[in-house]
């Protein structure tokens, strides 16, 4: 059988990222000055190149190559594009922080690039093996990144917890996959879906068990209760730049995973997984919103906030309708934009020897810098779901999707918890505007960070006023 080289075309972005990651690794070893920006620029260049390739080679139809291992469709294009954008911003925000902590060198960027490659594979995987490959590539990079400041106690603790729990979750996922394989005799997602659509295999014990194990793995990746225990500790313990990395783009990839496995693969078992997701959602709403109130550390607070956002994200999936998936996709992108800005703000406030991760560090920000206080205000209001900011439309979209399938009680619960959640977002605003500043040092952030951070927050406002564009982009990516 001759190898068809045109198969490689959809993979060009992945190939580029892989090649460049290796190149960055080599360049970094041989570069003379320790503080040079070369690695950083090469990394950003990689993302720009990948973005250009993705845009230049749009998938007009679902294109499965390598015997269905890899898929390129409009959903994967859009999600990858946002992975590039988010990662690009993450690297911009991290720069000063890393430099101040002597982490501004190859490891962070190389691991970051390999992580991005992992996410891209997760987004485009159409075979359980590929799914696992992408997931592990990403996870391993993340473990290492969390542990980069290995001589700091909290960091190594976080890394250890993350690794052990991650391994456990990975094992469960793999076990689930093996059960599915056993039942259906295939690893291919499309074939599996076809097998399930006929006969009563969907309700068999082995399939349900496999599905629950699979969801456990996904739940861990997303950080949904009860598989969320790692989230606060890792977010809190990891260096903020790594928290930023973990918090933003991987959520997009995890969403893709949910879409590929549950919706495309186990679509005919929707009745079964819907229940499980509802339980996880309600628990996440409760834990995320209620425990966040008791936090004094912003990173920890945002970790709980992530848990609650995951719950909203799952609402759209639970709806099980096309508009629900669109709403979820919209939500995950909006969430990535918001969490980027929120963690970016912590990075902005921090400097050498000062993490700025306590809520008290935000006190009186308005006196110190009215502009950035306003930016943070936008982010917090958006996370709380205040109209007309972007977060409001995202919440509205998922709630609408659930109401449409007559799960009104779930929507009401979600709204009730979002009111509780509004408390801790508003507390941040209160601290910034009504309390006296304790810290009066100047900000060290460079012009690039200032520009992108402002643009990021203003985008939340601007896209909130005109939410139609992004929403229709999501809708068209899912073929609506």
């Amino acid at each position, binding site marked *: 059988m001759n190898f068809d080289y045109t198969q490689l075309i959809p993979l060009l972005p992945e190939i580029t990222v892989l090649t460049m990651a290796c190149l960055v690794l080599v360049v970094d070893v041989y570069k003379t000055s320790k503080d040079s920006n070369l690695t950083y620029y090469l990394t950003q260049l990689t993302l720009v190149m990948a973005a250009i390739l993705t845009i230049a080679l749009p998938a007009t139809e679902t294109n499965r190559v390598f015997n269905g291992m890899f898929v390129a469709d409009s959903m994967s294009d859009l999600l990858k594009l946002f992975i590039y954008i988010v990662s690009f911003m993450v690297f911009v925000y991290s720069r000063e922080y890393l430099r101040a902590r002597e982490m501004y060198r190859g490891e962070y960027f190389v691991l970051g690039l390999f992580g991005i490659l992992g996410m891209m594979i997760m987004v485009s995987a159409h075979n359980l093996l590929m799914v696992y490959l992408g997931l592990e590539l990403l996870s391993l990079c993340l473990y290492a990144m969390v542990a980069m400041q290995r001589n700091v106690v909290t960091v190594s603790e976080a890394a250890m917890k993350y690794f052990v729990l991650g391994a456990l979750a990975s094992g469960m996922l793999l076990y689930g996959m093996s059960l599915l394989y056993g039942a259906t005799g295939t690893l291919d997602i499309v074939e599996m879906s076809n097998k399930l659509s006929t006969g009563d295999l969907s309700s068999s014990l082995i399939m349900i068990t496999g599905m629950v194990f699979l969801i456990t793995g996904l739940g861990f990746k997303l950080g949904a209760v009860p598989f969320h225990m*790692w989230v606060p500790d890792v977010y809190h313990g990891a260096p903020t730049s790594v928290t930023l990395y973990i918090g933003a783009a991987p959520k997009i990839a995890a969403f893709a995973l949910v879409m590929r496995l549950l919706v495309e693969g186990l679509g005919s078992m929707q009745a079964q997984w819907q229940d499980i997701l509802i339980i996880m959602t309600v628990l996440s709403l409760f834990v995320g919103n209620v425990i966040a109130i*008791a936090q004094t550390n912003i990173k920890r607070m945002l970790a709980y906030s992530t848990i609650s956002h995951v719950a909203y994200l799952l609402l759209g999936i639970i709806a099980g309708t096309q508009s629900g998936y669109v709403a979820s996709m919209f939500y995950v992108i909006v969430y990535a934009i918001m969490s980027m800005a929120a963690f970016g703000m912590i990075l902005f406030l921090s400097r050498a020897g000062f993490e700025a991760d306590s809520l008290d560090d935000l006190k009186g920000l308005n006196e110190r810098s009215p502009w950035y206080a306003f930016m943070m205000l936008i982010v917090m209001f958006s996370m709380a779901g205040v109209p007309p900011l972007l977060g409001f439309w995202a919440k509205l979209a998922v709630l609408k999707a659930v109401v449409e399938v007559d799960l009104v009680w779930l929507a009401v619960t979600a709204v009730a918890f979002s009111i509780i959640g509004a408390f801790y977002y508003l507390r941040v605003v209160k601290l910034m505007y009504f309390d006296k500043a304790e810290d009066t040092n100047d900000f060290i952030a460079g012009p690039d960070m200032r520009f992108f951070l402002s643009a990021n927050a203003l985008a939340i406002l601007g896209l909130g006023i005109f939410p139609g564009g992004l929403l229709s982009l999501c809708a068209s990516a899912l073929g609506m």
Partner: protein
Amino acid sequence: MENTYLGLVLAPLAGAIIAGLFGKQVGRAGAHWVTILGVGISFILSVLVFKHHVFDGGATYNETVYTWMVSDGITFQIGFLVDQLTALMICVVTFVSLMVHIYTIGYMHDDPGYQRFFSYIALFTFSMLMLVMSNNFMQLFFGWEAVGLVSYLLIGFWFKKDTAIYANLKAFLVNRVGDFGFLLGIAAVLMYFGSLNYADVFALAPSLKDSTVEVFPGTEWSLMTMVCILLFIGAMGKSAQVPLHVWLPDSMEGPTPISALIHAATMVTAGVFMVARMSPLYEYSETALGFVMVIGAITAFFMGLVGIVQNDIKRVVAYSTLSQLGYMMVAAGASAYAAAIFHLMTHAFFKALLFLAAGSVIIAMHHKQDIREMGGLKKYMPITYWTSLFGSLALIGFPGTSGFFSKDAIIEAVHASSVPGADIAYWAVLLGVFITALYSFRMFFLVFHGKERMDHHTKEHLHETPWVVTGPLMLLAIPSLIIGYLTVESVLFGDYFKDAIFVLPEHNVLAKIGENYTSEIGFVLHGMMAPPFWLAMGGLFTAWFIYMKKPEIADNIKNNMQWIYKLLDKKYFADEFNEAFFAGGSRGIGRLLWRNGDIRIIDGLMVNGSANSIGWLSSVVRHVQTGYLYHYAFVMIVGLMLLLGWHLF
């Protein structure tokens, strides 16, 4: 034409924004130039619109400019309805507004809030234009509330003065009562007519004239009567009709230019305009017309009486305004909408003139307003004197002046009307003529004639006011004298309002009077033989006799008729009643609800209670996050088991 209308409305708004937001940058002169320019453009465009619609026979313009939103099939739009009625209103509004703008340069010369003042009055002009040019109820309500807001801001313009703050709060609250009725009226229109657009509503009116509604079980109300009376309650608030009149005299706490513009010439006449605009609705409810007429008659008569005993120059004019607004309402109630609008127009000119003249006197007297401390100002302020005389003559309806035509038409119309209540109204407006002449000339004589009663210091500085003050006075005196003569034929007896105002044939009293109408001169000659003329002359003479010839008579009457004097001086104890009953009652209820409802139930139990319990919950649940790795793993496994169990068992 759409661009003309838009420019007409938006020019004052632009002026208001520039003067208001960039007051510091443009400076004092910049602020008055930019707003005068805005209102000036508006005035010129109004004249063009007037010409287009009246002389060139332009068709009625009724278009939507912008659709704000569509909700449940109901569209909320911004649109303009421009016909003869609107054309007349915008000319009056922009002309008086322009005069007041110019006058303000002199009156507010030393005030620190100069730019703010100009911004407000230009904003007022915008709001008033939105109100009169509206083609739907939503925009009408917007304009209605916007003029109310500006009125509130301007009454409290000197916000460091306690009395001003009291007065503006009072105006706001009393108007709220009226607006509540107005809003209910609009809601009723929306509910039963299914549209907010004038044209749609008016088209439906004939078919709904006999329908009834059951608001409370067991009652049957005529739909038209209910809608019209509710809308009229709004007009009672805005046009200060008894019993919602109490705010207008107090509004004199604001600077005099706005008393002239807002609380005499334009805003307070919005109620009259509204009733005229809604004539296709009011015509189908005689009950509502009778209600309008009786309320108007009560206001016209009793508020005039109070004017006799007032000593503050502005308050006399304010009570006169109340009384004249009553006249307009009476006319509207008699279905003589044209006469109401005609009186609205003439009144706008001479009342603005009288107020601005009063302001001119106040400037000269160094902001003393008590007429007992004035006298003999004629020789110091000739221009103010003569313009005031013209204004007063127009007010009492001296034959040939503009007020004569409009007031005579109203009295005749009421006489001819058969709406229930017309008899009482006729006597009220007839006797009102005597009272009007009495209080007007009492004030006139006390201010300009007789002994000079001011203190030495004030007297030394007495002189005529600058041209920016006297100029508008002279410009307003001209229409006060002649506008009636020029327009009476076409407005009252011609077909000026044929497309704009709807009158059922059996209600058409103006047509009945019109049968005897020959010419303007004939109207004047006829008027000079009718009772109103002699009553006016009698009032004038009485005022002269009592206050100039034999001042001791006034004191005698005051001493011998203590209780009447007290009743009038206290304005029928309306303020005391409101203070004790409504204000006291609301405060009592408020306190009760605050103590039991707010503090105990809402704050204590619900808000703080739920917040505390969530906080407590949070502090307990957070301990689940123990920090031990094996606990975390345990939770994951248990979670997995439970989820499995959910499906398997």
